């Protein structure tokens, strides 16, 4: 049982590429921390530094009370699932899973017992005598998983352990991993680029982009209160709509394109800085589910304003409709920050998007080509500074 602490951790590869920049992260004892971010943002690098497989250029990594910068992997008491499995090709599934225990001189009977348990849990029972070369990708991935869970390490490190499973198995394994982790109560650093995994599994989620930590919070808080444009655009599917907007003089109104949204004084009470943006252009974020077709809240003295669009496409998902619409406002999409020297999200990383998306009730009568009217509640909107990409509070 231990915590994982990263303090000002930086990784510069020998070729001069800075893959992780000044990362601070604390995984509490027993906590399930998910590290999420687009491909190439430094997730694996960060994990490998915790594992001791990669030198730490600057900063310190601690497991428990101990700074482990110079401790070799085998003495860190960690178990790791590799992104590419890294199985022992000359050993059977059972030997693969039991190898770590064997090296720890656990009695044979006990190893056998644990291997059988793990194989059962992972649905590998019928393959225990096979070599990895005779397994499918998904089966291999489960062997890699089994190798980690038979041990009782003080830290779990998992690098996209479910990426190769089919949808059904993935959901099943997601629950299984969460259960095992909870039962063992081991601090876990779990890497994924799948935000559903991040949202459903993590006690907390750390969002990484271009080697920099963007935000670290509970899944719900991340979703409800993204602190910058990257997190806002990255978390959630379909992604948050981002429109260019102008705060009117006096800050009583917001123009999204040509449409005016009333900004009530209650809003200024919770977002005092917004006033200082009067006359300036900002980015406003609207979650697809915050675009209702009726003003349900009107009775309870709400201040929703109408917001209209032109329906381009309606996608029926069964449980709901996704309505793609255009307005005369400028829409943005977030593209990954590939340049690690860019501080956060500058203008260049906002690219022009084409449309907005709304999530509406499944049986709504709506068709492409029609005009649609939503009701926007300004308190449900997210306001971002265009230059710094930070949330306006």
């Amino acid at each position, binding site marked *: 049982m231990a915590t994982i602490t990263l303090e000002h951790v930086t990784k510069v590869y020998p070729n001069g590429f800075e893959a992780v920049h000044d990362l601070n992260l604390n995984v509490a004892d027993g906590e399930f921390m998910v590290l999420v971010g687009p491909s190439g943002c430094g997730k694996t690098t960060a994990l490998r530094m915790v594992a001791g497989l990669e030198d730490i250029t600057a900063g310190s990594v601690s497991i428990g009370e101990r700074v482990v910068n110079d401790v070799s992997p085998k003495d860190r008491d960690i178990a790791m699932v*590799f*992104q*590419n499995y*890294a*199985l*022992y090709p000359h050993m059977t599934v059972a030997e693969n899973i039991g*190898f770590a225990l064997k090296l*720890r001189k656990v009695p044979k009977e006990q190893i056998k017992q644990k291997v059988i348990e793990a194989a059962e849990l992972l649905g590998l029972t019928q393959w225990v005598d096979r070599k990895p070369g005779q397994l499918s990708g998904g089966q291999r991935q489960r062997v890699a998983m089994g190798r980690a869970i038979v041990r009782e390490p003080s830290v779990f490190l998992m690098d996209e352990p479910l990426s190769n499973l089919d949808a059904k198995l993935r959901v099943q394994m997601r629950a299984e991993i969460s259960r095992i982790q909870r039962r063992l109560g081991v601090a876990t650093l779990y890497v994924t680029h799948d935000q559903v995994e991040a949202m459903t599994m993590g006690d907390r989620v750390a969002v990484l982009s271009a080697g920099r930590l963007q935000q670290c919070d509970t899944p719900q808080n991340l979703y409800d209160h993204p602190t910058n444009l990257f997190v806002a655009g990255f978390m959630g599917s379909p992604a948050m709509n981002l429109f260019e907007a102008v705060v009117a003089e006096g800050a009583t109104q917001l123009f999204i394109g040509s449409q005016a949204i009333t900004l009530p004084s209650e809003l200024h009470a919770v977002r005092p800085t917004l006033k200082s943006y009067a006359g300036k252009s900002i980015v406003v974020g609207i979650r697809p589910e915050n675009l209702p077709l009726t003003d349900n809240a009107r009775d309870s003295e709400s201040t929703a304003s109408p917001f209209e669009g032109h329906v381009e496409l309606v996608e029926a998902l069964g449980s709901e409709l996704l309505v793609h619409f255009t307005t005369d406002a400028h829409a943005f999409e977030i593209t990954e920050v590939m340049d690690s020297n860019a501080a956060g999200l500058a203008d260049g990383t906002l690219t022009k998007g084409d449309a907005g998306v709304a999530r509406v009730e499944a049986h709504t009568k709506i068709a492409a080509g029609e005009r649609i009217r939503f009701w926007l509640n300004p308190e449900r909107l997210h306001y971002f500074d265009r230059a710094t990409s930070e949330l306006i509070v």
Partner: protein
Amino acid sequence: MATSLDNRIHHKRGSRQWFLGHFWTTVTWVIALFLFSPVLWMVITSFKREGSAYTDPPTLIFHPTLNEYSQVFSSGSGAGGAGAPFEHSLVVTVASVALVLLLGIPAAYALSIRPIKRWRDALFFFLATKMLPYVAAIVPIYLIAEHLGLLDNVIALIILYTGFNLPLAVWMIRSFLLEVPREVLEAARIDGAGLRTELMRVIFPMVLPGIAATALICVIFTWNEFFFAYFLTAFNAQTVPVFLSHFQSTEGEYWALLAAAATISCLPVILAGWIAQKQLVRGLSLGALK
């Protein structure tokens, strides 16, 4: 109509392929037999009596006999018994190949998996030793051996052959080690393997086929090496190739005897090849990664 035409074309193409296939098979066999014919001649001759061994036209029908084989080992024959040379060759081969592996595997490891500083230079140095012409080395080597009192001594050959084979072995084993996925070794380290365990239980089993292939090549070279053995040995360390050469010079030519001796001398190499072959099934790292 159309289908029958199709069929005919199909048939024609099929028979053309049939013809080509058989043609190439035949050609291959003819070439193989042609290349193999000296060996075949050697084996056949070894079962003849000396009188019918080298006649013109060749004797094709004869009573096979093992007479010459027993002659090979009796010391009364042409160049003394084959027993001692066989023993020398065996000692030299086993010892030098064992040494090559013992030194070569760690060296290859230090040049691939955990590369030392300036490993490129080291690698080139290994290769450079192979660029020296054989013949140029014989005088200094002879003088050194004489100085050390190692003339006509198997130890001289063991050292020499180890030196010869080492660069090749290091290059070969290194290339096999490079195929071991980095993550597999890292997984082993995380699983608690120290350097020794990592080497013995993970790396070694994975590159065993490569090591077998390397060992086989070293065995073949060592067993058959003639040049240095001829100059550095006389009686106490005479190896099989040198022994064979004496059949032609001492008391005239004994073709059947020579053939029998040569046939026996092939057997150990064939045996080594057979053992190695069982290890040579490639693709051992299959399944390690995604």
